[in-house]
């Protein structure tokens, strides 16, 4: 079975390490905050200027001046810091954020990512995504392995305008965990019950399969 959105988030959460500063994008990446492994502490960075993002507020805590990068009302944990957008992107661009998790339309075997623009459709903007992919030490992309028509989103070369070049190192899809290196996708794990053949069939770019590929564990 292909993974649910929650299961993809659970698998990404295994990439978190104690003491990490992490920026989570909108969508599945946001869900990762719900599955931080027991016994480790991570600090969530929200690029509008908050380090130490907490959960949504209770009704009584709602404050129009406390929002996250998705413009949702949010809280700050004890020990949080709030700062300007310039300071926030100094952290991001300067490589101080340990891990960024974001979605994408396409990723290719050279680590290029396209996530913000489909020509012919209305372009809303890249927000902070280009800065995040250029700056983070580690980038994990979450997406479905293929689009709704069955076409692969893991390509030899992105067809859409890029968000960043050569920056993606790891991908967690609904079918597999892959590493991007040396101009190829390397299959690390497969979703429970998903065959290597199916992953191969849905990966348009070069896929390296080394030995037995274990199933993901949750």
């Amino acid at each position, binding site marked *: 079975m292909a993974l649910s959105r929650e299961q993809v988030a659970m698998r990404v959460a295994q990439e978190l390490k104690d003491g990490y500063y992490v920026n989570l994008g909108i969508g599945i990446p946001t869900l990762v905050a719900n599955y931080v492994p027991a016994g480790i502490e991570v600090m969530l960075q*929200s*690029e*509008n*200027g*908050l380090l130490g993002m907490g*959960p*949504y*507020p*209770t*009704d*009584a805590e*709602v*404050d*129009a*001046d*406390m*929002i*996250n990068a*998705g*413009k*949702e*009302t*949010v809280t*700050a944990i004890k020990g949080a810091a*709030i*700062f*300007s*957008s*310039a300071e*926030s*992107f100094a952290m*991001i*661009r300067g490589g101080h954020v340990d891990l960024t998790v974001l979605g994408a339309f396409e990723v290719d075997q050279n680590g*290029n990512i396209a996530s913000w*623009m489909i020509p012919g459709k*209305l*372009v*809303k*903007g*890249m*927000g*902070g*995504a*280009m*800065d995040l992919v*250029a*700056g983070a030490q580690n980038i994990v992309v979450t997406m479905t392995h293929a689009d709704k028509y069955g076409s692969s989103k893991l390509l030899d070369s992105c067809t859409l*305008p*890029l*968000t*960043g*070049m050569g920056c993606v190192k790891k991908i967690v899809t609904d079918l597999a965990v892959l590493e991007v290196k040396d101009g190829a996708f390397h299959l690390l794990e497969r979703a429970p019950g998903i065959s290597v053949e199916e992953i191969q069939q849905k990966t348009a770019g070069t896929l390296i399969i080394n030995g037995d590929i274990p199933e993901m564990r949750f």
Partner: protein
Amino acid sequence: MAGFNKVVSSYDEAMAGLENGMTVIAGGFGLCGIPEGLIAQIKTMGTRDLTVVSNNCGVDGFGLGVLLEDRQIKKMVASYVGENALFEKQLLSGELEVELTPQGTLAEKIRAGGAGIPAFFTATGYGTPVAEGKETREINGRNYVLEPAITGDFAIVRAWKADRYGNLVFRHTAMNFNPMVATAGKITVAEVEEIVEPGELEPSQIHTPGIYVQRVIKGNFEKRIERRMVRQGEGA
């Protein structure tokens, strides 16, 4: 002493000198931390052909979105503009020009503008449509894009507290772009929730020193929430 009394008592005074064709940089992230009354004043004045620089362009009927209603904005420089139908309509019809800029690059362009730095190199956007037509350079094995700074004829910000010297303190994440924006205007106008006596703001806790601010006005803010999300209270 009047030279350092930057407090004005009317929105007419606050935005006096704004003319057609000028560039206005506005603080705020979505609807959070926007100078609501100063935006309303620009609408009242009917100033046209403006270039507006801000992370977003408000929503239909609120924030910078109200300036679209009478087509006062000629060009918008922003990182994300997807929240209003009128924006989309004017963009598609060609009435409105938009320059999409990565959020961190936008923040740094404004910071650089206020700090007297004409341009800077950043890796953000290299190899993407953002870099098209721009100078690039390889430095220590990595490729960078040269991004020019931004300054404005007017900069409009919202702060929490100010004194008559123009010293500003921002509240929570309503800070966002406001500190950089405050540095980058020939005339910077701060609309604030509260004006306090000099000395009440702890000098080392001031976010924007008054040297950057020419006018201060006390505002009344609706503080509209764009996406109200709540969790159930503990024990509920």
